[in-house]
Every structure is written in C-alpha cells, then in structure tokens.
C-alpha cells in the first residue's frame, strides 16, 4: 500500500533545466543593468522574466486542455475476489496532446492495493497486476497525468476515473485447534488453507464459452449480470517452477527445447501473473531457490543458463522421508508371519523417516512452504538413472496438497504421484 497524496496532490508546475537556466540568465542581466545602468540589459532581463511567465501560463493552458480531453478505459479481469489475491488491470488513456507537450499517464490502483502501474503513452494500453489487501468495496484512485514541455513539467491527479468498483472478500480465518472459547488472539489467517478449503479463488463476469456450471447464481442475482466462479485449482497464485538441471550435455536439440520451455514458462509466469517461485535442483542438491519473484533478470540469473551440472550429492535412490512415512502407514494385511513382518517393517520405516536427516527433502519442504503455491510445474529431461530427487519433490508437494505437473520430453516416462504430464 502506498501513500500517493504527498507525492502527487501538490500538482504545482515545476521548472525544467531550461527554465532554470533562463532565470539565472535574467538574474545576471539584472545585476548587469543595475551595475552599469544599462537600459538594454534591463530590457533583456525583464523580457526574459516575462518570457518565463508567459511560457508558464501557456503550459497551464495546455495542461488544462489535455486534462479536459482525457478519457480512460480500464478493465479488471475480476471485479469480485478474495483478499490477498491478485488482479490484472488493463488500462488505456486517450489524450489530445497539445503541440510541443509530452504526456504520460500512470494509473492509480485502489488505496488498499499493493502494486504499481507503469507510465504509459496516450493511446497505448498498459497492463499491470495489483493485490488487494483489505476487504470491502474499493475503487481505483484515478490516473496521474504527467505533462512536460521544454520549460515546465507537472503531474496532475485526475480522480474522476475510478471505475470499476472492486469487491474484496475477506480471507478465511482458521482456528488453531484451541477449541471452543479460543480468544481472538488465538486465531490466524491462513490464506492458502482458507482458499484450498473453499476451492473458490474469485468471481468474474461471464464470458462466451465459459462452463455454465461455474455460474454463481447468488453473485449473479446480486449484480444482475452473470458471474462465474474461478476455482482455486484453475487459477491459483503464483506457480512454483521446479527445474531439474541435466547432469550432462545431451542432444542439443532436446536441450534447446528444454531451455526454451523453461525460459518461456518463467517469463510467462512473471509477465502474466504476480510472479513465480523458482526452484533449481541438480540431483540431490538445491542449486537455487527464488520465492515469488517478479524480477525476470533475477529469475534468469538463478537458472544460470540451464547449463548441465553434475550432481554433487547423489541420493542413491533414497525414497525420502515423505515416502517412508507413507509406507510406514500402510495398513496391515495378511496373517501370521506376514503380518508380523509388515508390522516390523512399518516400525523400521517410521524410525528411518523420523531420524533420517534428509537435507534435500528438508530444503525442498522449506522451499515449498515459502513459495505458497498451489501448483508445481516440474521441468526435467528425465534422464535414465536415479530419479529419486524428483520423486522426493513430488512427494513433498503432494504432502502439502499441491498439484504437480511434469513437463518432460516425449517418451521419457513419468514419475509416481504426479497429476499430469505435458510433453516439452
């Protein structure tokens, strides 16, 4: 959340360097005129001062004309959404720009929104993402018209362009298990859990081709227009992109396709959403992790050109604590010695799962926790050999209830536990 008022509402015109130079010249001529009693110098000084005043007046007239001609078209992908979720705004401003004046327009998001709009040229659409942080009805704060000519510059806040209204529902409140009578201080907002529990991330106006079963009739009746639900699984928060660096350089064409797919996914996620989290692994080693980054250069830097990297910490097909714990919970079957064997195996596995340090799994678990994503997109060439690090990532993600999509070359196989496979 920002404080626009102190920055923009003053609105006074500001002199440029050219104006400051002319003012200094006028001052020097005034001194000359007084010292030498030279009427020509006095005329030069006075006319320069008059010139600045005239240009200032001219600039004000042009600015008023530009402000009067300003029209703004703004679209938000969802006008009803949950607290903390992101909305993509597309805005286009049209201005009749007076001759000799340069104009830029910056959108002002709602006061309760986190995120800034870029400066854009008149007639050009700009898109940006904001995150609404407070519940209730809110509107946009208008636009800032930044105008300048050779002599003056000014920023004018035009607040009449505040449409559309946005309704923000509060994030769910989850009890911490303290039972009945727990005080208010014993509760905390758990955004991810609340969204996962309710399964709806927001509402948006109905568009042609939308599934009719997703129409929310209560919201539709309230607004007298069709609104559809947006399930959390279909449009989650920022995704976690997990990249498994290849151990050695293989087929150049496959490598190129892999690099393009990963780079495109990172770029697309950062441009289209509120950023993405990036987890880069090589065998049983976490090479890099960026939680919810919006800086594309930082993300590409973390990828390190996707150069092959020989794993320095092989896992030797270790299943990881998540799998061990799952196996330890397998219900007892069979009779006699088999039941005894299974019971002992369960105890053994449970002990391993508890005591195993498993630094890779722990690092992945921490990364998944910090990413706050609902979907993991796992990019790997799936080379033959040890894939236990990928299995551990998948299992840790499943433990957290995340959806896992594997992106791998055709015919490379699959991993247990994943939700979908997409061919690179």
């Amino acid at each position: 959340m920002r404080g626009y008022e102190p920055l923009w509402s003053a609105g006074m015109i500001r002199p440029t360097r050219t104006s400051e130079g002319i003012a200094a010249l006028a001052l020097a001529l005034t001194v000359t005129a007084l010292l030498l009693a030279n009427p020509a110098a006095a005329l030069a000084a006075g006319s320069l001062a008059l010139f600045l005043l005239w240009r200032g007046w001219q600039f004000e007239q042009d600015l008023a004309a530009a402000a009067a001609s300003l029209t703004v078209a703004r679209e938000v992908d969802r006008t009803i959404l949950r607290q903390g979720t992101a909305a993509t705004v597309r805005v286009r401003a049209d201005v009749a720009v007076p001759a000799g004046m340069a104009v830029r327009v910056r959108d002002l998001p709602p006061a309760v929104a986190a995120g800034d709009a870029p400066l854009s040229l008149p007639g050009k659409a700009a898109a940006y993402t904001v995150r609404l942080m407070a519940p209730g009805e809110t509107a946009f704060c208008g636009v800032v018209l930044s105008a300048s000519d050779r002599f003056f510059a000014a920023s004018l806040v035009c607040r009449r362009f505040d449409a559309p209204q946005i309704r923000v529902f509060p994030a769910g409140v989850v009890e911490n298990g303290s039972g009945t009578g727990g005080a208010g201080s014993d509760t905390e907002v758990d955004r991810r859990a609340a969204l996962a529990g309710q399964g709806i991330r927001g509402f948006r106006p109905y568009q042609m081709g939308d599934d009719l079963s997703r129409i929310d009739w209560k919201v539709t009746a309230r607004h007298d227009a069709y609104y559809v639900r947006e399930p959390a699984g279909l449009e989650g928060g920022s995704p976690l992109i997990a990249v498994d660096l290849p151990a050695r350089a293989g087929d150049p064409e496959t490598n190129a396709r892999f690099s393009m797919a990963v780079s495109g996914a990172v770029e697309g996620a950062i441009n289209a959403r509120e950023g993405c989290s990036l987890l880069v692994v090589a065998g049983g080693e976490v090479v890099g992790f960026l939680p919810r980054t919006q800086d594309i250069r930082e993300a590409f830097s973390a990828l390190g050109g996707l150069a092959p990297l020989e794993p320095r910490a092989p896992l030797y097909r270790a299943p990881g604590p998540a799998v061990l714990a799952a196996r330890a919970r397998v219900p007892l079957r069979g009779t006699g010695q088999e039941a005894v064997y299974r019971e002992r195996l369960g105890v053994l596995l449970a002990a391993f799962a508890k005591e195993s340090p498993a630094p890779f799994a722990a690092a992945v678990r921490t990364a998944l926790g910090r990413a706050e994503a609902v979907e993991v997109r796992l990019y790997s060439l799936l080379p033959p050999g040890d894939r236990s690090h990928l299995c551990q990532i998948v299992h840790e993600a499943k433990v957290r209830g995340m959806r896992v999509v594997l992106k791998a070359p055709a015919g490379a196989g699959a991993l247990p536990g994943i939700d979908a496979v997409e061919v690179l």
Partner: protein
Amino acid sequence: MAFDRRFLLLSLGEVLVVAAGNLAIALVLQAIVLAAFLGDLRGYPVFAVGAAAFAAVLYAAGMIALLGLAAALGCGYAALTLHDHRLALRAGGRA
C-alpha cells in the same frame, strides 16, 4: 547537447542585446533571439506585445521600471499558482 547549444546561442544573443545600446534595436533583437530560441511561435505575439510595453515603460520611467516589473511578475506568479491550484482541485474532483 542540443539544449546546451541552443542555450549558448540564447546567451550570445543576450550579449548582443546588451551591446546594442539603443532600446528600440535591443527590443527588436530580443524578439528575434527569443523567437529563434523558442522555435514554435504559437502565441508569441502576446509575449511580444508584453515585451514592447515593458520597453515603453522602461524608456519613459528609466531603471525604476524594473521594480514595477518585479511587482507585476509577483502578481503574475500568484495568478499562475492560483490557476494551477484550481486546476488540481478540479481534476481531483474537489472543486
């Protein structure tokens, strides 16, 4: 760099104006120099008339005209500020 060259030419032009000595020649030179500096002459006659009026006052009253000009500039600046303030209020929806 273009800005520097233009401003240098303006400064040289002002030296010429001061060196002219005669007020009428100085006025003509000043009008030409500022017109060349400005490029876009939209509304320029308004300024030219103001400069000519100031030259006339200067010719009639002498150096004391500078004081009058200072007062006039103060009033002009106040009017400009008021106009700017009203524009900001109108755009902000408060007037």
